[in-house]
């Protein structure tokens, strides 16, 4: 699971109001090289929750992203785009869990696949 996906997931348990972002419990993180595509990054920048990405990236051991939402002018910087690219697409959570920030419920991640299935009493 890439951090782009983490950025698009929220806790779906009934009654949860603020289920985003899910906290990451990382047991195994792998890095996989992905083709660098500035257009894609510029397109995604407006759709990403920056704080969630920066925090998630830190939890995964990559501490190079600014904490504060950067000004969109940074998208002209190759150096910034490379870091954004690495955090968003190249860090994979292979094993671990995503934790609902409100209830503490764990959603397991195995073989890089988050399992968001709910129990009957959670829907």
């Amino acid at each position: 699971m890439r951090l782009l996906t983490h950025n698009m997931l929220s806790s779906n348990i009934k009654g949860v109001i603020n289920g985003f972002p899910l906290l990451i419990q990382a047991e195994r993180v792998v890095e996989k090289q992905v083709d660098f595509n500035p257009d894609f990054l510029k397109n995604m920048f407006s759709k990403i929750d920056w704080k969630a990405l920066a925090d998630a990236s830190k939890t995964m051991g990559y501490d190079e992203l600014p904490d504060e939402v950067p000004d969109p002018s940074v998208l002209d910087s190759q150096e910034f785009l490379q870091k954004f690219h690495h955090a968003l697409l190249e860090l994979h959570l292979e094993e671990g869990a995503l934790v609902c920030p409100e209830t503490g419920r764990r959603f397991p991640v195995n073989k890089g696949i988050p399992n968001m299935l709910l129990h009957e009493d959670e829907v």
Partner: protein
Amino acid sequence: MPPRIAQIRLVSSHPQVYEPCDDSYALVDALLADRTKLLEHHPTICMEVGCGSGYVITSLALILGSEARNAYYFATDVNPYAATVTRETLEAHGVHAELVTTNIASGLEKRLSGLVDVMVVNPPYVPTPDEEVGSLGLSSAWAGGENGRNVIDKILPVADNLLSDKGWLYMLFLAENDPLQICLQMRDKGYGAKIVVQRSTEEETLHVIKFWRDPDIQMEGNEANLTPKTAPQRGLEFLLSHISRLSFRERQ
């Protein structure tokens, strides 16, 4: 060179995961038929609900290929084995999609709302007793409840929420699902509809229908019947006559 699609010998399998079948081929044929349009559409987020073996999402990623430079793929399935098998199928073809084990798109709906440019679905569509829907095991891959509509009727509102303004939905239906009624229902929500592929075998008649948000339809509101016919209405009429012709042929 014709565009590549997933190769059956590279599609991974598991005893509890639906194997590619006529319905899967019909859906991929629809995507192939629309390839040029899909490329001109410049999709960013593409998503499959109910990915099973991964045959369809892998084919979509191969069909769009490197020409759709900004395309990014998600696939979901309620069956955890399906997500694992899909991962293997994707890897065997050297393409990538992000996988989530979930009911339809639960957990993704909030943040992906209005962001999906292309959505593809081959749902469990076979008419069965309602109890069989969502049961554990392979039958949940096809069991669709009354008229096969149980899961379909849950997916459509999710698609409506997820699709971007320019979003397209490609969905497969069986004649027994009453695709005509589905198109009318989607029309009420402002969607145009078109049959991209239709196929009849001895056992079943399949339609792949493409839906898109049509601003003209939304403008018409409830007085559509009274206003002069617009192009989308004519499109729908064409579709209706098409479907009724098909069912007419079936009755013969």
